[in-house]
């Protein structure tokens, strides 16, 4: 199996959230991301820090959703990858 690159992992996580109507709990997100718990936590914090996702806590519920920047990343993902390939970056 080919190892996923960092950008691809970010895209996969964001895509899962988007496909769940932009609202998913942390545990199913961890499960569907196919990452170890440790790596998932690292990515999770990085995505929050970069402003791609937000951790929403309402009463006793907690869910994750994409920010505008997260949607933008998904929209531009192909362009980013094509650019990196084109210039061999």
């Amino acid at each position: 199996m080919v190892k996923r690159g960092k950008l691809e992992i970010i895209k996969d996580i964001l895509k899962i959230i988007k496909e769940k109507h932009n609202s998913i709990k942390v545990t199913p997100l961890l499960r569907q991301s196919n990452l170890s718990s440790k790596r998932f936590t690292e990515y999770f914090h990085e995505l929050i820090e970069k402003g791609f996702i937000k951790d929403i806590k309402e009463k006793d519920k907690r869910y994750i959703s994409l920010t505008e920047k997260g949607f933008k990343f998904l929209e531009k993902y192909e362009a980013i990858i094509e650019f990196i390939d084109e210039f061999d970056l």
Partner: protein
Amino acid sequence: MPPPFYNITMNIELIYSFVIIICSLMIYFGTKELYELSSYKGLKYFRLSFLFFAIVYLFRFLIRLSLLTYNAPRMLDMTPRILGHSAQFIFMYFSSMAVFYLIYSIIWKKFKENSKTIYLFHGLALLLSSITLFFRGPGIILITNVFLLLFVVIIFLLSYKKSKIKKRGLNLYFAYILLFIFWILNIIDLLVPNFLELIQLFIYLASLSIFLLILYKVLKKTG
């Protein structure tokens, strides 16, 4: 009163520098969104390279303007001396770093995540700037630049051998190697008076074409 060729030379210099500065800044700002979203290191070095090219060509134009205005053959002959010396040192440093960033944008993946290799390139750029400042003879400047060109081309060819884009053709690597060759010729043209006078216009046209080609490739991907 300025010499009769002053206006023509200045207009050519102005157009040449202006087009390259605009191309470089369009590449830098055109890739801003992709970098801000991805924080990808290769993109960071690629963008920095063109930002440095924009600074270098702005600087180059100001140096040319000063040389023509003060009728001085070389930067080191300008008065006050400190002005000429600092101008040459800064020009060489930024110009070397522009090319080193472009190389590093391709080879950075071969180093560890937090590698400090880029500082080696800063060191090399400072060394080159010092050499051209302290050893003022045209011979030393020519030899230094030929060695630098060889160094850059060897790194590039080694990188090309392992490249994923090999199958798609030589286009990009060929364009980069031409960029390096004309970058060296630009430096020699500025630092060694009258050495490349006869082919100056050709150097300008070739350099412009390479920058326009890279800009075209960038715009095609960024829209």
